[in-house]
C-alpha cells in the first residue's frame, strides 16, 4: 500500500476549513452510498411484495412516485446525519465535518436548512460551489445560507505518527 505522504499531514488540521477536493470526494461518496442504499431498499421492497403477494413490484411505472421517494430519501440521508453529528458517511470517510460558522456543533435547524438549500448550489450550474474554492472561509452558497462551514475533523498528526511507527521495526535501545 502507498504510504501516507508525510508532507500532506505534517501538522494537525482539526478545525481547519476543509478544501474543495476533500468535500467533492466526500459528496461523491455520499451520492454513491445514498443511491446504493436507495436501490437496495427498492430491491428489498420488491422482494418483500413479491413474497407476500406473488406479484412482481416495480416503481418503473410510477416515475413521479419514484422521484418523490428518492428526494425524500436523500433529504433524510443528509439532514439526519448532519443533525446527528455534523457528518455523513462520505464525510466520515474523508475526515471532514459540518459545523456552525463559529465552530460550535451544527443544530438540527441548520442541518435541515443546509439540506434544503444544497440543491441550489447544484442547480445554478455548480456556481454555488465556487465559493468553496475561492472564498476566504471556503464556504459555498449552502454553507452561507445555513450559517455553517465544513472543517477537517481528522487528526492528521496522529495519522503521521501511525505512518512513522510503521516505517521501521523498533529495536530496543541499548545504553
Amino acid at each position: 500500500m502507498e504510504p501516507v505522504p508525510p508532507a500532506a499531514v505534517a501538522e494537525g488540521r482539526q478545525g481547519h476549513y476543509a478544501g474543495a477536493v476533500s468535500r467533492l470526494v466526500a459528496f461523491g461518496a455520499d451520492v454513491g452510498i445514498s443511491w446504493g442504499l436507495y436501490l437496495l431498499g427498492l430491491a428489498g421492497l420488491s422482494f418483500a411484495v413479491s413474497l407476500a403477494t406473488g406479484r412482481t413490484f416495480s416503481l418503473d411505472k410510477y416515475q413521479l412516485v419514484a422521484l418523490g421517494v428518492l428526494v425524500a430519501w436523500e433529504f433524510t440521508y443528509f439532514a439526519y446525519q448532519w443533525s446527528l453529528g455534523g457528518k455523513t458517511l462520505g464525510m466520515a470517510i474523508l475526515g471532514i465535518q459540518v459545523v456552525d460558522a463559529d465552530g460550535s456543533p451544527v443544530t438540527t435547524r441548520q442541518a435541515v436548512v443546509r439540506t434544503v438549500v444544497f440543491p441550489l448550489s447544484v442547480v445554478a450550474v455548480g456556481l454555488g460551489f465556487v465559493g468553496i474554492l475561492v472564498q476566504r472561509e471556503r464556504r459555498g452558497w449552502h454553507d452561507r445560507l445555513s450559517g455553517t462551514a465544513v472543517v477537517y475533523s481528522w487528526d492528521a498528526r496522529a495519522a503521521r505518527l501511525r505512518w512513522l511507527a510503521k516505517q521501521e521495526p523498533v529495536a530496543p535501545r541499548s545504553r
Partner: protein
Amino acid sequence: MSPNPITGRFESMAQAVAERVVALVVASLDVDALVQRGDVDKLVQRVDVDKLVQRVDVDALVERVDVDKLVQRVDVDALVERVDVQRLVGELDMDALVEQTELGAIIAKSTTGVATEVLDVVRAQGVGLDDFFARWTNRVLRRDPSALPVGPGALVPSTTPALPPGRRPSPEVRR
C-alpha cells in the same frame, strides 16, 4: 630528649622560651594588615588549580554528601512551577520519538488496522490536493495565505497559518 639530665633541663627551658616567644610574636602580628599588603591576585595566579583539583579525591567528597538530605531541601513544586512545560513539549521531536523508541511499536500495535491505513491514505491524498488547489487559487487571486482565516474561531486560534510551514506562496503573490 637528651639522656643527660642537665642538658635535658636546658633543652626544656629553651623549648619553653621558644614557644613563648613565638606566641608573643604571633599575637603582635596584624594578619589583616599583612594580607592587605600582599598581592592576593598574584598569589592566586601562581596557584595551579588543575593540579590542586587533581589532588582532591572527588569520590570521597561525594561519598560524604547526603544526597537524600540535599534533595529533601529542594522545593520540587517551586522548581516544577518554573518549568515551561508547554515550551518543553513543543520542543519535543515527536517524529524522532515515535521512530526511535518503543512508543512507535505501541502506536502501531494499538491503532493500525487495514481500514485505518486506507482511511489515512485517502484523507492524506485529499488534504494534499486541497492544499494544491488552495495554493493555486491564492496565487491566481494574489492572496496572502497567512492573512486568511484557517478555521472557525471556536476551533482554531486565529494566529495559525493557513498553509503548513514551507508551503508559502511565491514572493510575487501579494495581498
